[in-house]
């Protein structure tokens, strides 16, 4: 096979994955790691719901419950949702803008390994004296050295390291979209998924850096007796919630914007219409990103920052409803009069719309600062943000999985199993969380591990738990579907099963490592669909066939991230009965990290070329494959 002429196939699978800088393989790594963390945090949610199923349950202790709750939130946001979205961003951005790779393939791998080692570090907390137990927000003084155990050390350093990874990837996506677009791919011809990823990446750059600063402060407080947050020495505990939510609110949009992008890709394809109000969608996205930085105080209404502050932030918060409403209506108008096909992907995408509206409406309710005193710290808030995160982000990711799976793995997922999964998940989701609105309104506080019987909460909690089990079942069905579909896959991979509109469907499946033999010339929005209508259905090349320059794989990203992991673990060892001086470990880790960076800087790596002849042979082979189908 000529395809083996390409570099990477000479490596063993493990070594290839450890050293790859190919955005498609890194995407798969993100997908696998994100799914594992998702499964882990989902299991924690199930344990939480088992504990709350009946009044005064003794299934887990209060301490374990706090740890489960904190880890569930932390993992879901930082280590499950983020990498799952990054998987799709990594895979799709270069394909959709007609590029051969991201701008910095090396940094792409580095971002993944930072995320991975950060996640591992956080997870190690279970084995070294207990997980973080101060909630995912880790409010001081609860998370300070006086009250929280070693788990919080794992929290600050694990998140710091995985945050580096997220930041690096964010910068990479921004530059990729700015400089690497194919000829004719103007900004306003870019698929909405790329636009949303672009805005998300900007939010990452301005959101994760305050988080890094805040985590550094908390780390200094815990490890080196800093006095930032403890009032006794002049510190101020309110600084932490400010910093955390200056990051934390944009984080919500960091997660939901790519999901918006996925929905905006799926709905036009299965409505066979171009997206309604494309330009309005783009500007709504920009506006949401902009406003997302101006609303953080709505998480702190009950901290009593004064009526003027609260009013301003309440109004700004409600303003976000406007661009989001624009998006909702544009999705509805895209479906209006379209030739609708309800595949699993479309079921997820279209049901996303009303679910997200429900979450948005409760969001407006929560934005009313006087009334928030009533909702604050009740299950109403829990219901609200799960409608956004599960009803928004997870439905988006599930839809995207069914939609892009054939491009990533060469075969579709089974539709029957998919529809079973969808309906079980959808019904289970509403069972779990709709009823929590009512539980919150009648006074059930969040973050409690037990409650007394006969307050009118028993039945509703039971229903909520049953819904959670259904969602668990749905995810198991998805995994079964992955295995089943792989066993039943057709002999030949599928290229364009959904009649796609964007550039990723113009590539061969499996996508060759150079993506496009010749970078395509883009003539319109939905470029592939334009060619299907106005051309011969294939993209016109924008350049002659020539040698293709590719980056070399490298083991250094793994080493740099490993070094940061060792250094982080060394710092945590300060709070253990270690047989070795923790600073020796820290210095060792830093040496590995900065040493690997120096090696990277020292060794000029100019990559390699796939010769024109090899490209031609590979293309011929792929075309012959397609004709045989």
């Amino acid at each position: 096979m000529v395809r083996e002429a390409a570099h990477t196939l000479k490596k063993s699978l493990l070594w290839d994955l450890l050293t790859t800088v190919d955005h498609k393989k890194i995407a798969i790594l993100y997908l696998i790691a994100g799914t594992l963390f998702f499964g882990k945090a989902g299991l924690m949610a199930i344990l939480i719901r088992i504990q709350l199923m009946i009044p005064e349950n003794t299934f887990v202790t209060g301490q374990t419950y706090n740890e489960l709750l904190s880890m569930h939130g932390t993992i879901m946001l930082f280590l499950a949702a983020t990498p799952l979205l990054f998987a799709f961003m990594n895979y799709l951005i270069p394909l959709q803008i007609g590029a051969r790779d991201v701008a910095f393939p090396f940094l792409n791998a580095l971002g993944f390994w930072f995320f991975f080692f950060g996640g591992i570090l956080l997870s190690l907390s279970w084995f070294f004296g207990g997980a973080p137990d101060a909630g995912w927000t880790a409010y001081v003084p609860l998370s300070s050295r006086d009250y929280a155990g070693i788990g919080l050390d794992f929290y600050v350093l694990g998140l710091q390291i995985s945050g580096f990874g997220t930041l690096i990837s964010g910068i990479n996506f921004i530059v990729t979209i700015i400089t690497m677009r194919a000829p004719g791919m103007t900004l306003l011809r870019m698929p909405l998924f790329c636009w949303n990823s672009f805005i998300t990446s900007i939010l990452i750059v301005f959101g994760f850096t305050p988080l890094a600063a805040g985590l550094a402060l908390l780390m200094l407080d815990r490890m080196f007796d800093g006095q930032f947050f403890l009032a006794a020495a002049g510190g101020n505990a309110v600084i932490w919630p400010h910093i955390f939510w200056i990051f934390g609110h944009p984080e919500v949009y960091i997660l939901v914007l790519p999901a918006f992008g996925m929905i905006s890709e799926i709905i036009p394809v299965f409505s066979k219409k171009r997206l309604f109000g494309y330009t309005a969608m783009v500007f709504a996205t920009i506006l949401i990103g902009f406003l997302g930085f101006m609303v953080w105080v709505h998480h702190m209404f009950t901290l009593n920052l004064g009526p003027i502050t609260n009013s301003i932030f309440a109004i700004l918060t409600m303003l976000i409803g406007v661009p989001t409403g624009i998006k909702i209506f544009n999705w509805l108008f895209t479906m209006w009069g379209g030739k609708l096909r309800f595949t699993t992907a479309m079921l997820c995408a279209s049901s996303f719309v009303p679910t997200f509206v429900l979450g948005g409406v409760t969001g407006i309710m929560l934005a009313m600062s006087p009334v928030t005193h009533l909702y604050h710290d009740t299950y109403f808030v829990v219901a609200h943000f799960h409608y956004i995160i599960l009803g928004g982000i997870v439905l988006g990711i599930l839809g995207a999985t069914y939609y892009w799976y054939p491009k990533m793995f060469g075969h579709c997922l089974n539709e029957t199993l998919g529809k079973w999964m969808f309906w079980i998940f959808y019904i289970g989701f509403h069972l779990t969380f709709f009823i929590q609105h009512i539980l919150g309104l009648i006074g059930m506080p969040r973050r409690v591990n037990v409650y007394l019987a006969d307050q009118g909460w028993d039945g509703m909690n039971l229903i909520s738990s049953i819904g959670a089990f259904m969602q668990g079942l749905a995810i198991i069905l998805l995994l079964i579907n992955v295995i089943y579909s792989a066993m039943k896959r057709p002999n030949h991979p599928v290229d364009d099963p959904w009649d796609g509109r964007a550039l990723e469907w113009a590539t061969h499946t499996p996508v060759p490592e150079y993506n496009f033999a010749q970078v395509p010339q883009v003539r319109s929005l939905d470029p592939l669909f334009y060619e299907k209508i106005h051309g011969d259905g294939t993209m016109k090349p924008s350049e002659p066939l020539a040698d293709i320059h590719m980056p070399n794989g490298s083991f250094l990203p793994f080493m740099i991230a490993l070094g940061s992991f060792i250094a982080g673990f060394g710092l945590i060892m300060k709070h253990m009965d270690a047989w070795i001086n923790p600073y020796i470990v820290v210095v060792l880790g830093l040496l590995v990290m900065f040493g690997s960076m120096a090696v990277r800087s020292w060794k000029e790596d100019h990559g390699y070329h796939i010769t024109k002849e090899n490209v031609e042979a590979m293309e011929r082979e792929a075309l012959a494959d397609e004709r045989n189908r």
Partner: protein
Amino acid sequence: MSETVDVSKGLPAHPERATLEGKNKFVGFWVFLSGEVTMFATFFGTYLGLRNGTAGGPEAADLFHMPLVFIMTMILLTSSLTSVIAITAMKKNQFKKMKLWMWITFFLGVAFLGFEIYEFVEYVHYGLGFSTSAFASSFYSLVGLHGAHVVFGLGWVLLLLIRYNRAGITLTNAPKFYMFSLYWHFIDVVWVFIFTVVYLMGIGGG
């Protein structure tokens, strides 16, 4: 933009972004610096919120002395200027001149760092330990973060200067030197804010 650039007739006008890789680095580094801005802003905000929390320990007005800070500021501003001269020389393909001015930048940076360490040691002698008060913690972490950036920058430029000691200016190393100079300017700008917010307001009591 083409992957290869013809350099047979000398370097192009902007060797730091003549290749796609260089251009990517150029854009990416600006994005990175904008992220750094928000990170420093968070540290500045923390300092502003906590600078009066001295808990009976030394206060800003007792500690800071204008002459020392003035000298440090001048050294760092000058090092920024010398890095500009070096980059101008780079664009004119004058390798030796660039190297000379980069080395001067490096030594000015070392001098600045020496003063900063001296400053911190003095303050500790004066009774301002890291855990003395919220003011102390936020002061040391803000100025210390800047100092850590200086250390990283010095290590970086040292590595570049040794690695490319005899290489001449190429389209591969021009972006590297240019990114360093951007980074160095950024450090300088941060210091200007530290000078104003920490030292001037500390001495003036603002």
